[in-house]
């Protein structure tokens, strides 16, 4: 079994995806991109509670890296086209996850993405987002519909945590692009110092 890095948002999907990977016997590390001040404390609290539950269930330590992402959002909002903000945001999340994977000697990245659920989860946006990294990406829920995911979340006890009140991401544009062009994304990204942003985020990350 391999060691992997799972992006955890606090939502319904990521703990279900993590559950499947743990059930297969993979050794997992969790990463939460901390979006404050564009959210409140609730996403991080939910991730901590999800992991408490899954650590107990699978008897795995599952270290949690909390990576500050709010300042990255501010930089992107000030300097790039808002329309593709979600794709750019995801590219920075993936890069951070990959850096942590290097540190943790993990061989794959994973998310709870399911095709077509939200703007960032269309095929073209997923391709644009993941073109920023090299490690293989595992998506255990890719073909699931929302109802199926919720059903599993209820059965493993994470649903009640995920659906607690919280502030959704305020950085999401009014009309996020559902199709993106990698050339345009790369041009937008040239407006910011990608390496410096990632360096700062990783330096400020904390492990819980």
């Amino acid at each position: 079994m391999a060691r992997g890095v799972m992006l955890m948002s606090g939502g319904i999907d990521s703990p279900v995806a993590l559950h499947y990977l743990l059930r297969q016997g993979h050794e997992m590390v969790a990463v939460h991109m901390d979006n404050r001040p564009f959210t409140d404390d609730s996403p991080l609290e939910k991730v901590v509670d999800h992991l408490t539950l899954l650590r107990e269930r699978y008897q795995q330590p599952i270290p949690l890296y909390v990576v500050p992402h709010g300042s990255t959002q501010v930089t992107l909002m000030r300097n790039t086209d808002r329309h593709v903000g979600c794709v750019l945001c995801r590219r920075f999340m993936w890069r951070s996850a990959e850096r942590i994977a290097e540190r943790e000697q993990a061989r794959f990245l994973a998310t709870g993405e399911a095709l077509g659920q939200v703007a960032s989860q269309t095929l073209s946006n997923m391709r644009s987002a993941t073109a920023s990294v090299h490690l293989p990406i595992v998506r255990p829920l890719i073909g699931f519909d929302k109802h199926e995911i919720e059903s599993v979340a209820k059965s493993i006890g994470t649903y009640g945590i995920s659906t607690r009140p919280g502030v959704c991401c305020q950085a999401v544009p009014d009309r996020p692009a559902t199709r993106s062009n990698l050339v345009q994304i790369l041009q937008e990204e040239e407006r910011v110092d990608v390496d410096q942003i990632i360096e700062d985020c990783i330096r400020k990350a904390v492990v819980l």
Partner: protein
Amino acid sequence: MYRTLRVCSNGGAYEALPDPPRPLDLKRVRGVLEREGVAVVDARVMLIAALDPEVTISRSGRLLFKTRDGAVAERAFRRLQALLGLPAPEAGLESERNPA
């Protein structure tokens, strides 16, 4: 005109929307808040003001108060209203419900 202060879709905050729409000049808003000693994060299309509670101020005029307490949100709204000269609701601001 802000008619209601309502719970946002995820239930974690209160929001106020101007009706009819009334875009805000965020440069002016930032200047006013900073002169009052309020720390502001400027993300170009929105400001995040370190009031009590933290408030997201969008260019569209939408205000998001990060609290689940309607009374706290309403108090913060009144403060912003006084600082920024926001139009008063005709019949008072009514919190639709308290999710707490």
